């Protein structure tokens, strides 16, 4: 009953189009005011302490790094490299776009930023080569989603943060610790590469069927030159992953280091950003970060109300009592998240849903890391489903196609992603193989 009231207030407020963060905050206040005798002061604390965690600070750092990379010509050189490697296949440019998305995803933490960086160059180039725009936008809008599946990933940080400190109990009552950022990051690598390969296959198939143009095969000299020019961007993959797993820094520190590195290559090496443009990049990044941190703060407050009303526990008991088991529960989670993913942004969904779903998943014996990746893949799909899908918006802005056309264009890759979602959900080894290999 309490849960119904809370979610009814939230839905009503969200429907007015007010910012998600404000809707979360007002839900908490109105629930406290009208339905309980809890003093507001007692939750005021959460407004201050909600984001007081060093792990959360990875988010602004990765956003800043991403902005330097997007503005700084790194993507341009990565695309040239990808094109030289795979451009001669069927749908060469489209395929190169998918590969470039995967490469850029390995240094950027955000999906829309990946679509932006790769799409703004690749989509016009594909159209110029004779691809219909309706085809060109699809692979980029979908593969840009890899930005949050291949580490680093802002949404993965959100998942680690939303579940952090939760000591849920497993099927036999044993305590299960929440996953660290590093575990989730490493778990995303193999699924990310597999999905990239599946997107690539879909692209080749569509292009082959429609007879789209291929590029002439590049010589090895050309490929090596393209590789050398993109080396500064590719090195960042080594710095982030090598730095974290080589024991040089923590994931949060890695984010700060990659921001400084991205600044240096953008301003001093590639010189695509002038020094006087730097404040603008800082400002844009600060605004974007503040927006996300604001949602986090209010989501923490919202989660506190749920917890103090014991809603996750009740829901968890209820779902366990339904006897779904793992398979049924995961199917339900996927369907629910795909639906919510149509209308809400990933960060808000993760912050609201993860604290509720996580204890149930653990109780059913699902590995916290595996569960995290399932959520991330759902979020990735949500970014490319209408009506609210940032990847589609960015794709539409670049291609100048309407939202409907972009949504249609992305369908083959969305179907691919759905197949992949089923694989990830029911074959945990895909996700857990690499972390286990590394002893994590």
């Amino acid at each position, binding site marked *: 009953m309490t849960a119904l009231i809370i979610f009814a207030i939230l839905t009503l407020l*969200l*429907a*007015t*189009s*007010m*910012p*998600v963060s*404000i809707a979360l*905050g*007002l839900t908490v*206040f109105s629930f406290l005011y009208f339905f309980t005798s809890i003093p*507001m*002061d007692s939750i*005021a604390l959460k*407004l*201050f302490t909600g*984001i*007081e*965690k*060093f792990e*959360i600070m990875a988010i*602004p750092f990765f956003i800043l790094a991403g902005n330097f990379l*997007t*503005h700084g010509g790194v993507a*341009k050189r990565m695309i040239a490299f990808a094109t030289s490697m795979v451009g001669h296949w069927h749908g060469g440019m489209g395929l190169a776009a998918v590969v470039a998305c995967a490469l850029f995803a390995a240094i950027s933490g955000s999906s829309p930023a990946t679509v*932006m960086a790769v799409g*703004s160059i690749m989509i016009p180039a594909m159209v110029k080569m004779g691809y219909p725009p309706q085809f060109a936008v699809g692979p980029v809008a979908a593969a840009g989603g890899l930005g949050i599946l291949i580490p680093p990933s802002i949404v993965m940080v959100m998942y680690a943060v939303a579940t952090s400190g939760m000591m849920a109990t497993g099927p036999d009552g044993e305590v299960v610790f929440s996953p660290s950022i590093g575990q989730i990051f490493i778990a995303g690598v193999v699924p990310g590469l597999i999905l990239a390969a599946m997107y690539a296959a879909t692209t080749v198939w569509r292009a082959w069927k429609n007879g789209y143009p291929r590029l002439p095969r590049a010589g090895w000299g050309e490929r090596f030159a393209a590789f050398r020019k993109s080396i500064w961007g590719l090195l960042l993959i080594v710095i982030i992953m090598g730095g974290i797993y080589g024991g*040089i*820094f923590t994931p*949060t*520190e890695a984010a*700060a*280091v990659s921001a*400084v590195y991205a600044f240096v290559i953008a301003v001093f090496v590639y010189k695509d950003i002038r020094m006087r*443009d730097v404040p603008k990049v*800082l*400002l*844009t990044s*600060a*605004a974007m*970060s*503040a*927006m996300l*941190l*604001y949602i986090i*703060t209010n989501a923490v407050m919202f989660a506190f109300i749920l917890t103090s009303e014991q809603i996750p526990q009740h829901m968890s008991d209820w779902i366990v009592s339904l006897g779904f088991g793992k398979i049924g529960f995961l199917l339900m989670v996927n369907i629910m998240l795909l639906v919510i993913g149509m*209308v*809400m*942004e990933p960060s808000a969904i993760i912050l609201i849903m993860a604290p509720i779903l996580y204890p149930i998943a653990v109780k059913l014996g699902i590995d916290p890391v595996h569960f995290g990746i399932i959520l991330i893949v759902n979020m990735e799909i949500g970014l490319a489903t209408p009506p*609210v899908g*940032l990847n*589609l*918006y*960015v794709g*539409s*802005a*670049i291609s*100048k196609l*309407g939202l409907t056309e*972009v949504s249609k264009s992305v369908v083959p890759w969305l179907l691919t992603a759905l197949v992949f979602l089923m694989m990830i959900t029911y074959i945990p080894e895909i996700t857990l193989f690499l972390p286990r290999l590394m002893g994590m």
Partner: protein
Amino acid sequence: MFLRILDRFEEVLISVLMAAAVILIFVAVFHRFSIGYAADLVRYARANEMPELQSWARSVYSSINSIKLTWAQEACIYLFVWMAKFGAAYGVRIGIHVGVDMVVLKLDAKWQRIVTIIAMSGGILFTAILVWIGTTFVYHVGVGGQISADLEMPMWIVYLAVPLGSALMCFRFIQALHLYVTTGQIVHHEHGHVDGMDDAPAPANGGAAK
């Protein structure tokens, strides 16, 4: 005039906080890294019985390690807390806080206007409550005399970000409401637009908004 100064102040503040946090953490990582090298040098000299090198390396090590940066993480957190609260206010000005406008867009013009005004008033109400709660809280913490663990800085100063940032944010929501009521305009941030990227086509309107 006052507004221009306020706008500028807001922008400079959050940019500087962002830059300061990055530089701070980068320096802390570099610091730890260099200590590691100095220690390796001391151990190398010790193992190979090179007393002069050892004492030199040791003094280098000691002087680097005497620079205490254990407060860096805490400082970073507080810089970002301030950035988040004031950045959120700036975010209202540029329309970066996204909502779900599906329902509203389906309404007829009159209802759309009413619901939008309600939505914006929600922002005003929420931030106004925060100013109130925040001020009370800061007062209590001030009386309690708590200090932060690493910087040992009074916590009420840190927490002042909430009432101050919320007050500014409230003002920005009032501005936004005023703009909407008088002109019918809503400011939206263009997620599809990236400045300074020559190859990017001009962002289209419509789909890209919000």
